[in-house]
């Protein structure tokens, strides 16, 4: 495991106290996990607020204004309130499945962050199969949604869960294929390697300039993966009341809610890493570049959400299989030919 500055600092601290060996490693890991968790919770809280603000301003209103300055504490209030809420388990629900669904959703959303490079050296663990790991772990979300749909013993929830499973299975493929183009060029699945392969040219040698099609495919598929409008069918409020989370209340709902926003951040972070050159960029510190790019993608996703109607479920499938998939293959062909020819 490569020890980054923050590791070193923690280790040093522990050595002073007199803790070494495996115990120290364990403490370091826990501390790190807590940090990532805290950071992500902060980000998720911020994103919720930001989304509400953006939607409000698109709609010429103010959004939250009462909690804190311009409502910055709104999400905190929401979270604290949700914790206080009664935790209802429907009488006929499958209790175990019902309980574990939000946990899995929450954990898998956060687990993806182990391999995301927030900046130069700001990565928990640079796995050499990083991108594969992310794709694998984010797919757990789908299982949790399916579990939520099944466990609730509610027909709307069930339809929502089924929809999400079908949707995720369909969109996973173009998503992976679009990333594959980058992996082919970078020659590695490690997130750090992918970012580093895009350095140079004053920090502007980003994959998006070489594979714009791949980026578009990724963005569309990622929107679907994050269950955002126009692909938010699993929880289509107007058709399925609230979709898979219809029976969830209190903390369990908060988990789903936060996981949704964390997922959105995840897909944006991957887009940044894979297509927008990660932390690469001139002048500014690397983490600012990374955060800036990610938030820009998040912003784009938000504008999508507040501009477009929702697709129908069969159109969604058709779009994935008949449009996105061929385009993704086309993209791979193009990358293969040009990578060989131009020797990127």
């Amino acid at each position, binding site marked *: 495991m490569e020890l980054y500055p923050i590791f070193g600092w923690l280790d040093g601290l522990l050595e002073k106290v007199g803790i070494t060996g495996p115990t120290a490693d364990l403490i370091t890991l826990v501390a790190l996990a807590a940090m990532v968790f805290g950071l992500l919770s902060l980000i998720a809280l911020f994103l919720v607020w930001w989304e509400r603000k953006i939607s409000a301003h698109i709609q010429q209103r103010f*959004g939250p204004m009462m909690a804190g300055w311009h409502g910055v504490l709104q999400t905190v209030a929401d979270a604290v309130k949700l914790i*206080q809420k*009664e935790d*209802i388990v429907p009488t006929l629900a499958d209790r175990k499945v019902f309980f574990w669904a939000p946990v899995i959703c929450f954990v898998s959303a956060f687990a993806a962050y182990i391999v995301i490079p927030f900046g130069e050296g700001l990565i928990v663990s640079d796995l050499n199969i990083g991108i594969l790991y992310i794709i694998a772990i984010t797919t757990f979300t789908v299982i949790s949604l399916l579990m939520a749909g099944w466990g609730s013993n509610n027909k709307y929830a069930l339809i929502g869960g089924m929809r999400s499973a079908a949707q995720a299975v369909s969109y996973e493929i173009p998503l992976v294929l679009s990333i594959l183009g980058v992996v082919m060029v970078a020659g590695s699945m490690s997130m750090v390697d992918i970012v580093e392969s895009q350095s140079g040219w004053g920090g502007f040698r980003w994959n998006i300039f070489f594979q714009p099609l791949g980026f578009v495919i990724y963005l569309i598929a990622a929107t679907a993966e994050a269950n955002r409008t126009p692909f938010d069918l699993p929880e289509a409020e107007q058709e399925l009341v609230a979709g898979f989370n219809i*029976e*969830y209340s209190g903390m369990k709902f908060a988990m789903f809610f936060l996981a949704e926003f964390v997922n959105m951040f995840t897909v944006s972070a991957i887009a940044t890493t894979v297509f927008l050159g990660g932390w690469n960029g001139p002048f500014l510190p690397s983490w600012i570049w990374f955060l800036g790019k990610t938030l820009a993608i998040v912003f784009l996703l938000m504008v999508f959400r507040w501009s477009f109607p929702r697709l129908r479920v069969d159109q969604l499938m058709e779009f994935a299989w008949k449009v996105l998939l061929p385009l993704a293959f086309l993209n791979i062909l193009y990358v293969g030919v040009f990578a060989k020819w131009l020797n990127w």
Partner: protein
Amino acid sequence: MGIISKLPVFTENLPGGGLVTTSLNQILTMTQAKSLWYLLFGTACCAIELMATGASRYDFDRLGMIFRASPRQSDLMIVAGTVTYKMAPIVKRLYDQMAEPRYVLAMGGCAIGGGPFYYDSYSVLRGIDKIIPVDVYVPGCPPRPEALLQGCLEVGKKLRTQKLEDWSGPKNESR
């Protein structure tokens, strides 16, 4: 109730626990007041004003209120409009499905006491307080959006007067 409701029992026994409980109570009720998610549930004319209140000019979101379509996630049930005898069991059931702490706002004359349908009507329930407990009554037919906002602030005020210990959620079996 979530785990939080057990906290006061715990803190009471600590030294200085009374103060902790009070401030905790304040914080918790304040967050509730700032984040009243309402159930998107309208039956008649008032529902249109409810929608108008959610729209740009009056903007429920400003008060931290967003609509949830599912009763499980909502804190405030705004009964907007006439409730008939046919509808009454459903209103009751929706209320039962809501998670504690939950509040009810009766919007408009019909929900308060039958409104113009009080006399001579064979199908209108004369006041939803006959089936569910109501916290705040907002008169009007339909009330202006501002009046509704005022009513929601009033709900916030009311819930702040409550004590954490009082919230022992009724164990309702019909969920």
